[in-house]
């Protein structure tokens, strides 16, 4: 049985300050004109009425992280021999993210299927994932770019979260989703909220009613494969693409990375850093051959991966959480929804010539 | 032996092979007393110096960067230093926008025979950097690691 608590709006900051004694706490606040999940600070204004510019992706999947530390040392017995000491560097400590949206938290479930699969476990990811708790805020405002309802989610979806917070007029109803989440709800600042559960459910229903019409994407995996070889299709939909990484880096479910070494004197580190399939270097082979030489090939992979390959591998789950950031932040205004729908509706021209 | 009192600062000099490096050599052979803060990087020509070398040096924590090449009209490659002059002047004027004091970077011309002039240039530039003091450093682990390495190399 989920634990249900209520917190008054005014108590949010004091509560986060309490949590910050035990965990690193992140909450959305402005850095310049960008709304980001930043380390909680009593002095900072927390902004909860709009979606953040960037999802809290860095909390579990840092932009760049150290996988291996290595040191070169001369063998004192034989100076021409260089010894190398390489060791792993695992992340420590626990993190609480406050104010993530259902789409943000659900994004990590796309990571989970790949990083914590039955074949392989990524222990760096695992360490962070296990120790990062999401207090997710249900969305009261549905933005023009939102389409979580197209991808089997909704504005009150608790998937991937530890606590779901439903915004009420005077505060938030906090419902635990996971056991770890339940432990976060023991503060004296919280009061029993079960009496307001009905009210909260009603709010969720209202929100669900206000969202744009859903679209059936069940045909997407097959249809995207069907247009795979139609380069004219992909050249047209990618014509305005600039091949930058804004869409992937702001995406809560884009999980690709690069591994590179950096050295400084006798010391160095192996880094895992964000990489994106929009970049030509992503698949560029040492020989100079590139299987995805143009932006059309690359955008095809991005859309294809999310709406076709991933669902085919992972039981039909679309690897997009519908947050719409790729649309909102694309410098060229590319709308991924448009591309997917276009592929679904695409009818190969009747046999030509 | 340092001419200036106190701690050495990190000053990097980019010197062209044909004139200024020779000038520095002449100063050395002539046993002219010079401050020892400067670390010299020899380049084929002042025209070879990408202004980004200087920016990277400064962002990595150098306290000052000095560039010296052949006098205009004396370039071993005829016109390398004419191009360099434009690039370096633009850089000189650009750096303050980053919060890097104008005096942290200077460029000048010293010929191979001008040992005396080299001594004056180095002394003057080193004094100028000491007056400015250590440059502000970028925060963060990556930057401090570089600084530590640089410290060890000095």
């Amino acid at each position, binding site marked *: 049985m989920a634990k249900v608590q209520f917190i008054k709006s005014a108590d949010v900051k004091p509560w986060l300050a309490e949590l910050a004694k035990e965990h690193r706490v992140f909450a959305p606040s402005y850095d310049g004109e960008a709304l980001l999940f930043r380390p909680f600070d009593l002095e900072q204004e927390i902004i909860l009425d709009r979606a953040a510019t960037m999802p809290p992706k860095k909390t579990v999947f840092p932009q760049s992280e150290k996988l291996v530390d290595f040191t070169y040392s001369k063998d004192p017995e034989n100076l021409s021999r260089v010894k190398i000491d390489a060791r*792993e560097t695992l992340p420590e400590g626990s993190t609480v993210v406050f104010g993530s949206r259902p789409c943000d938290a659900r994004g990590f479930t796309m990571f989970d299927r*790949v990083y914590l699969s039955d074949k392989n476990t990524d222990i760096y990811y695992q360490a962070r994932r296990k120790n990062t708790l999401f207090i997710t805020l249900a969305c009261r405002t549905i933005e023009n770019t939102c389409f979580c309802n197209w991808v089997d989610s909704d504005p009150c979806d608790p998937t991937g979260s530890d606590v779901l917070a439903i915004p009420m007029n005077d505060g938030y109803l906090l419902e635990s989703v996971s056991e770890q989440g339940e432990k976060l709800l023991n503060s004296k600042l919280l009061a029993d909220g079960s009496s307001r559960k009905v009210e909260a459910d009603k709010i969720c229903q209202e929100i669900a009613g206000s969202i744009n019409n859903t679209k059936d994407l069940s045909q997407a995996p097959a249809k995207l494969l069907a247009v795979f070889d139609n380069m004219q299709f992909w050249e047209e939909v990618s014509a305005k693409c600039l091949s930058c990484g804004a869409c992937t880096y702001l995406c809560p479910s884009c*999980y690709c990375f690069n591994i590179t070494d950096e050295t400084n004197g006798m010391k*160095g580190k192996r880094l895992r850093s964000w990489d994106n*399939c929009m970049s030509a270097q992503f*698949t560029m082979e*040492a020989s100079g051959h590139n299987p995805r030489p143009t932006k059309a090939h690359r955008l095809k992979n991005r859309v294809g991966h999310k709406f076709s390959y991933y669902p085919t591998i992972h039981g039909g789950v679309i690897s997009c959480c519908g947050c719409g950031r790729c649309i909102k932040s694309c410098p060229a205004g590319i709308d991924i929804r448009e591309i997917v729908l276009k592929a679904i509706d695409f009818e190969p021209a009747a046999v030509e010539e | 032996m340092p001419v200036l009192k106190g701690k050495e600062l990190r000053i990097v000099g980019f010197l062209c092979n044909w004139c200024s490096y020779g000038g520095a050599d002449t100063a050395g052979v002539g046993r002219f007393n010079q401050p020892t803060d400067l670390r010299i990087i020899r380049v084929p020509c002042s025209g070879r110096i990408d202004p980004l070398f200087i920016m990277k040096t400064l962002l990595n924590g150098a306290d000052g960067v000095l560039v010296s090449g052949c006098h205009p009209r004396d370039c071993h490659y005829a016109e390398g230093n004419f191009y360099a002059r434009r690039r370096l002047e633009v850089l000189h004027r650009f750096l303050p926008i980053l919060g890097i004091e104008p005096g942290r970077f200077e460029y000048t011309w010293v010929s191979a025979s001008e040992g005396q002039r080299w001594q004056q240039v180095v002394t003057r530039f080193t004094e100028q950097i000491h007056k400015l003091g250590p440059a502000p450093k970028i925060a963060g682990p990556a930057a401090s690691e570089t600084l530590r390495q640089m410290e060890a190399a000095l």
Partner: protein
Amino acid sequence: MTKNIYLPEMATIQEVIRETHNIMTFRVTLNNPEAMKNFSFKPGQVGQVSSFGTGEATFVINSPPTRMDYLQFSVMRTGEVTSKLHSLKAGDQIGVRAPLGNSFPYEDMKGKDIVFVGGGIGMAPLRTLLLFMLDNRADYGKITLLYGARSPVDMAYSYELQDWLDRDDLDTYLTIDAPYEGWQHKVGLIPNVLLDIAPSPGNSVAITCGPPIMIKFTLQALEKLGFKDEQIVTTLEKRMKCGVGICGRCNIGTSYVCMDGPVFTRAQLRQLPNEL
């Protein structure tokens, strides 16, 4: 404790062999004797070899699992990592993450005639399977090897070729692209020579590996000879980083070359979208 899939085993280069002007072979052993003793792999599996400070690159383990004194990698100099590896010598330390990927379907090949068609550095993955089969000779039918390179000096494993030529239980054909003084073997492009040799497709499997252009025409030649898609096996190459299906760059549609490959039958390749 879950294994760290990104932490390489430290290994020592035991021997470096210069094969050609741009190919070097490294024989390495894992530093941890326990790990070396327990190391097991199947022919065709690859490893991520790293020079710390430069990075990792993917190479097939081209020694067979039947000869475990060392693991052998042949490296053609093309990029940053391979150039660095070429500067290493016996005694130097490298990192190895292996085995990764799938392997040749050597179980399914039992009792069949085998045709190897290798070009240039593409001989490396064939070598592991060839030696494995020679070490388990009774399990396989007639074995034919066609190995081609641009010129005699571009032939890797030259020190082994005479043995292979001399063996009665192996038909070896060597070819080079253009006539060369003193060359006593075939001259001509691999696909043409293959058509000359004309191995029978009957109860055969053909395994081919080499540069893309050679593969393209070899597949056509095999088809001409009557080899069906299921009878042709080849290996794919992609830029790889993690090697374990996570980092996301080596996919062709739903298939990840690092996990589902590098070995594919032509029939499997036809199922994949066209993005080689």
